[in-house]
């Protein structure tokens, strides 16, 4: 192919502006025009080989002018913005654009891997399944053989190259709602949009290309007396000006989900040389439409013949678009090969634009006279009842061999004629684009008269219009668009109004092709150009029994390349149908899967790129950060792990913090605990049913620790619940459990016991929580609390009181997670930092220490309190030595299934503690075993919460051990092979400090 720029004039180069634009392809600078696509600019510069194919690395040129392009894939940009596999046909040219060809080494014109072609027929469908099994031997060696080969295969496969650098751009989203979504702005789409808009509907119109108009931008017909493209421009302007219409160009509707939810991707700045930094590069539109008009048109498909992959062979309608819209001749001498009327009109329109059309070859013998008449205008040689037998030229088309063709038998005649041409424009008929409705489950139907699949019955509120439903030609398309909009208005419960179909003057042709899909002359004929699937591969699949369409697709990889077979699926099916002696209708088709065209992953994530999840912060967050506390991601929360002094490790820090708490007093931020306000006349009864232990008789002003089970008897969550008034409780949950506990309560309140009067409200964010723990905690409170007697008598263990600290209203509960005398002080969270400061100040003379999660955890481990690692969804209260918390006097959630026999088995994993006997750290993730490091034996349990215990002066851990409650005193080993650790431990009771509770009751 040696394309060139035509003389631009009225009707030639309608999309092209005057401005010259510089761009770089494969390191070489070129010039194009404003309005060019990368493909048209390359073509205008005479570049013919643009890429290499996937398997055989054969040279490939430009095949189409749109998103169906299988061949012309390039890599755009450099560095972090490098983007592989971009279709040159869709890239809008801008100053400074850099593009490279791909899947070739060293260059697109000379590619070493093209040697694959020599392997030719050995490299056929199913090749990989039949070899590389490895040399006879079984086992790992054989796998290694495949793995060895695989490395090379992987390197040879793939298309372009990605980058290891993070994408510096950002992406956006838009949630949109409309009465009617119109997909496509060809004749049918515009007709639908105008009627829908006139009917007062909220309308969103999406167009994949930069400019609305579809095929109207290249057809020579007239609508309402003006050239079709001017009519389209007029419609576009009118629609854009309407308040109830959103017209989105460069926006592809990619996926059709349930209940008329669509995903469209808008390419916001991809065509700009210097986009504004605050503007997202692409925007995902989540569109919910009451009804939709799908007017996605049809894609031309080729006829398959030997050598049909040579650069220079392209779709006929695309050749016309290059000539008319981009003012670019696809070749110096163009031959047209067709099985339908389209080819003839394309020949005429190209000739009018100044392209030399040398030949028109039509497989049909009975071509209508008015169509034949066109050839006089084009001055091309006409061969009807003929077909292309083979292509001349090694790296690009230099000619073709034509032979007589029998349309009925598919046989080629003996006489051959060689023609000279550098471009073959092929038309094999039209395939309606019903990808969206097929994604939704709509079953396509083969329409023999049109030789095309049509979308079939709607499964949702959509109406097809135009070529998509087989309404080919402008007149039919406008009519069906108008009608579809009427139906869509009715769906949206709006008045249909009266339709209007504009008047069309122009060609009235038959779009139905002759049923010819392949010219079988024995040479290599490509069905799927990108994946190098040949007609022979399809027949081989048939021979090997892969006859179902899905097997055909999977075995040959037909239609699985980046173009998803847009121009090859129907042809492949037809060849399979012929091989199995079946009608196409009986062969079936595969379901299209979303998206319609490849979608940038960043665009799918939208605004979540770089912002995966919100952070939950406590009111004291800034203080923790200012102290250089190491912040720890605890679910959505960020929490301080420890407050390391200069030079301290985390372990040194938490040991210091723990010790200071046990000796004096410490302060910790517990604002992350879940908090639920439970109110109502039946609140006590409700809690009684939810918790394993009794809550009905809890006095006002008291808190109680409670356990919740799942219905299957396993532990669900725990926490303290405070009775603030007769009918008002403040429930606390674990940090991680807050959300699911709320849902659990709501389920029982709404669905199981709706007659209970209980109000539930999340107050997690209302209250900041600060625990003050240690023997001097009372002294600290005494120094700052007003309005409450904090003495043992005034505020006994588990007591809850209202008070103020520095004028801040607080609730003080005397609770102990640490085993020390301790309090939890809650205040409104906007006062959290102030309260923290006040407590801190009050504690200064007692050397109050802030402590983090690690120390918090160490304190509770020493005390033998269970937490997340023990509440792992596989433990029951009995396993955790909490049977005493399970009431036998009432029924509650989980009470029945907790009685199942298996839960009382003696060999269950039960809570114990272990302490190191050899000074080693009992490292996280260790199992408990009886054997040596080299021969540990089986796992008999595992450690759950390890730490160094300043109190015991050794490393300890809570653990789950088979039959553990009866094994105190036993010597075992902890085994941690992945950390290369092994050490001696003794099994002890989990009550490691103050088993009688004297300290916290003191």
């Amino acid at each position, binding site marked *: 192919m040696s394309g060139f720029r035509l003389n631009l004039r009225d009707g030639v180069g309608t999309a092209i502006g005057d401005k010259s634009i510089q761009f770089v392809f494969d390191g070489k600078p070129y010039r194009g025009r404003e309005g060019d696509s990368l493909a048209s600019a390359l073509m205008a510069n005479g570049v013919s080989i643009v890429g290499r194919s996937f398997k055989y690395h054969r040279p490939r040129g430009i095949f189409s002018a749109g998103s169906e392009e299988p061949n012309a894939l390039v890599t755009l940009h450099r560095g972090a913005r490098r983007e592989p596999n971009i279709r040159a046909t869709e890239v809008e040219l801008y100053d400074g654009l850099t593009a490279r060809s791909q899947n070739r080494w060293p260059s697109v014109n000379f590619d070493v891997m093209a040697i694959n072609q020599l392997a030719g027929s050995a490299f056929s469908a199913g090749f990989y399944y039949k070899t590389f099994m490895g040399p006879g031997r079984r086992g790992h060696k054989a796998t290694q053989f495949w793995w060895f080969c695989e490395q090379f295969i992987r390197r040879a496969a793939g298309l372009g190259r990605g980058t290891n650098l993070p994408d510096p751009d950002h992406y956006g989203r838009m949630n949109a709602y409309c009465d009617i979504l119109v997909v496509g702005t060809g004749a049918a789409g515009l007709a639908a949009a105008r009627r829908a808009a006139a009917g007062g509907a909220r309308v969103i119109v999406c167009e994949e290309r930069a400019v609305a108009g579809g095929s109207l931008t290249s057809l020579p017909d007239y609508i309402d007396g003006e050239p079709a493209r001017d009519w389209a421009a007029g419609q576009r302007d009118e629609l854009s000006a309407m308040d109830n219409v959103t017209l989105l160009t460069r926006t592809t509707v990619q996926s059709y989900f349930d209940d008329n939810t669509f995903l469209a991707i808008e390419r916001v700045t991809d065509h700009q040389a210097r986009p504004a930094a605050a503007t997202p590069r692409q925007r995902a539109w989540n569109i919910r439409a009451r009804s939709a008009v799908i007017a996605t048109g049809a894609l031309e498909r080729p006829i398959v013949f030997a050598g049909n992959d040579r650069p220079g062979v392209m779709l006929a309608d695309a050749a016309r678009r290059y000539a008319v819209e981009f003012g670019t001749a696809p070749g110096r001498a163009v031959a047209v090969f067709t099985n339908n009327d389209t080819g003839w009109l394309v020949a005429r329109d190209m000739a009018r634009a100044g392209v030399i059309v040398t030949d028109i070859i039509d497989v049909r013998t009975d071509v209508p006279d008015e169509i034949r008449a066109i050839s006089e205008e084009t001055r091309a040689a006409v061969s009807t009842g003929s077909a292309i037998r083979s292509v001349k030229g090694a790296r690009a088309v230099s000619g073709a061999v034509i032979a007589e063709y029998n349309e009925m038998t598919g046989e080629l005649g003996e006489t051959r004629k060689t023609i000279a041409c550098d471009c073959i424009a092929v038309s094999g008929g039209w395939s309606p684009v019903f990808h969206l409705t097929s994604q939704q489950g709509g079953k396509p139907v083969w329409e023999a008269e049109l030789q095309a699949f049509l979308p079939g019955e709607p499964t949702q509120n959509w109406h097809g219009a135009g070529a998509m439903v087989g309404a080919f030609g402008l007149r039919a398309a406008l009519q069906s668009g108008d009608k579809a909009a009427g139906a869509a208005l009715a769906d949206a419960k709006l008045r249909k109004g009266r339709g209007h179909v504009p008047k069309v003057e122009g060609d009235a042709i038959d779009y139905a092709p002759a049923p010819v899909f392949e010219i079988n002359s024995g040479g290599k004929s490509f069905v799927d150009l990108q994946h190098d699937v040949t007609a022979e591969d399809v027949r081989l699949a048939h021979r090997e029994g892969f006859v179902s369409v899905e097997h055909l697709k999977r075995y040959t990889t037909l239609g699985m390349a980046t173009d998803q077979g847009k121009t090859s699926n129907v042809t492949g099916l037809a060849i399979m149908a012929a091989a199995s002696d079946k009608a196409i209708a009986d062969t079936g088709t595969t379901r299209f899967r979303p998206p319609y065209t490849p979608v940038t992953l960043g665009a799918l994530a939208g605004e979540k790129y770089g912002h995966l999840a919100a952070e939950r912060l406590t009111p004291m967050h800034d203080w923790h950060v200012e102290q250089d506390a190491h912040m720890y991601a605890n679910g959505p929360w960020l929490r301080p792990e420890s407050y390391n002094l200069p030079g301290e490790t985390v372990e040194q820090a938490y040991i210091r913090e723990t010790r200071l708490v046990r000796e004096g007093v410490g302060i910790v931020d517990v*604002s992350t605990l879940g908090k639920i306000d439970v109110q109502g006349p039946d609140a006590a009864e409700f809690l009684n049913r939810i918790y394993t232990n009794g809550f009905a008789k809890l006095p006002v002003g008291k808190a109680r620790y409670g356990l919740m089970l799942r219905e299957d008897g396993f532990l669900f969550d725990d926490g303290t619940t405070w009775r603030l008034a007769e009918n008002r409780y403040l429930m606390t949950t674990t940090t991680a459990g807050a959300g699911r506990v709320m849902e659990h309560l709501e389920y029982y309140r709404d669905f199981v016991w709706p007659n209970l009067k209980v109000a539930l409200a999340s107050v997690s964010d209302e209250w900041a929580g600060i625990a003050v723990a240690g023997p001097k905690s009372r002294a600290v409170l005494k120094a700052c609390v007003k309005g409450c007697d904090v003495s043992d008598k005034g505020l006994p263990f588990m007591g809850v009181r209202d008070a103020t600290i520095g004028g801040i209203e607080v609730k003080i509960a005397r609770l102990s997670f640490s085993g020390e005398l301790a309090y939890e002080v809650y205040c409104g969270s906007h006062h959290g930092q102030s309260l923290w400061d006040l407590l801190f100040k009050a504690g200064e003379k007692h050397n109050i220490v802030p402590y983090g999660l690690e120390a918090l955890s160490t304190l509770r481990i020493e005390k033998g309190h269970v937490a997340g690692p023990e509440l792992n969804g596989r433990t029951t209260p009995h396993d955790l030595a909490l049977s005493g918390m399970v009431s036998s006097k009432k029924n509650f959630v989980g009470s029945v299934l907790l009685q199942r026999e298996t839960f009382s088995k003696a060999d269950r994993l039960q809570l114990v503690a272990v302490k190191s006997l050899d000074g080693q750290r009992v490292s996280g993730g260790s199992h408990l075993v009886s054997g040596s490091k080299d021969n540990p034996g089986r796992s008999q349990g595992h450690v759950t919460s390890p730490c160094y215990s300043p109190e015991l002066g050794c490393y300890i851990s809570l653990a789950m051990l088979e039959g553990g409650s009866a094994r105190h005193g036993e010597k075992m080993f902890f085994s941690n092979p992945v950390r290369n650790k092994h050490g001696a431990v003794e099994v002890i009771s989990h009550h490691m400090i103050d088993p009688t509770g004297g300290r916290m009751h003191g």
Partner: protein
Amino acid sequence: MVDAPEKQSPLRDLAMPRQIGTEANVELTERLCDSLVQVQAWPNSVGKVEKILKTLKRCVTMPSGPGRWLIEGEEEGLEEGLRRELTDDLGAVTGLTHARVVISISGPRATRVLASGIALDFDESNFAVGSTQLAHHHEIGLTIHRLAEDQFDLYVFTSLSRSFWQWIEKASAEYGCRIV
């Protein structure tokens, strides 16, 4: 009796007045409530509770669920006041003054900014001026009160308010934004 210190907003350092971009198609600001209360009526007391709520002065009452309202008062002490009138047999009163931060957004592009992160139909046929919608931005729940065609108050969970602010500021930047 010492007075309580001033409440501190988690957005105090983020929502500093400034201009982002050259235009100001969106205006953002934040505030804390003097009082914010949730009222939940029992199924058989909805009418009585509604009557009580109608007597409230200097309050914005936003329906927030079946038999449920979110009420912002311009003075402190709304919770205690309501609890006196709204006894246990009528419903439940929950104080949420500290549980939310209010972020206000206004301007010609306000709805577009909101629609870029909140799955809600902002058309006035669905979301009338003066009404309230419950929605969310990903995992962040929101109560949205529409004050005018292009003016909204968003009641955002305190612990998540910084994340939300970061998003809305970035989303507003595309159109030009002023923080006041």
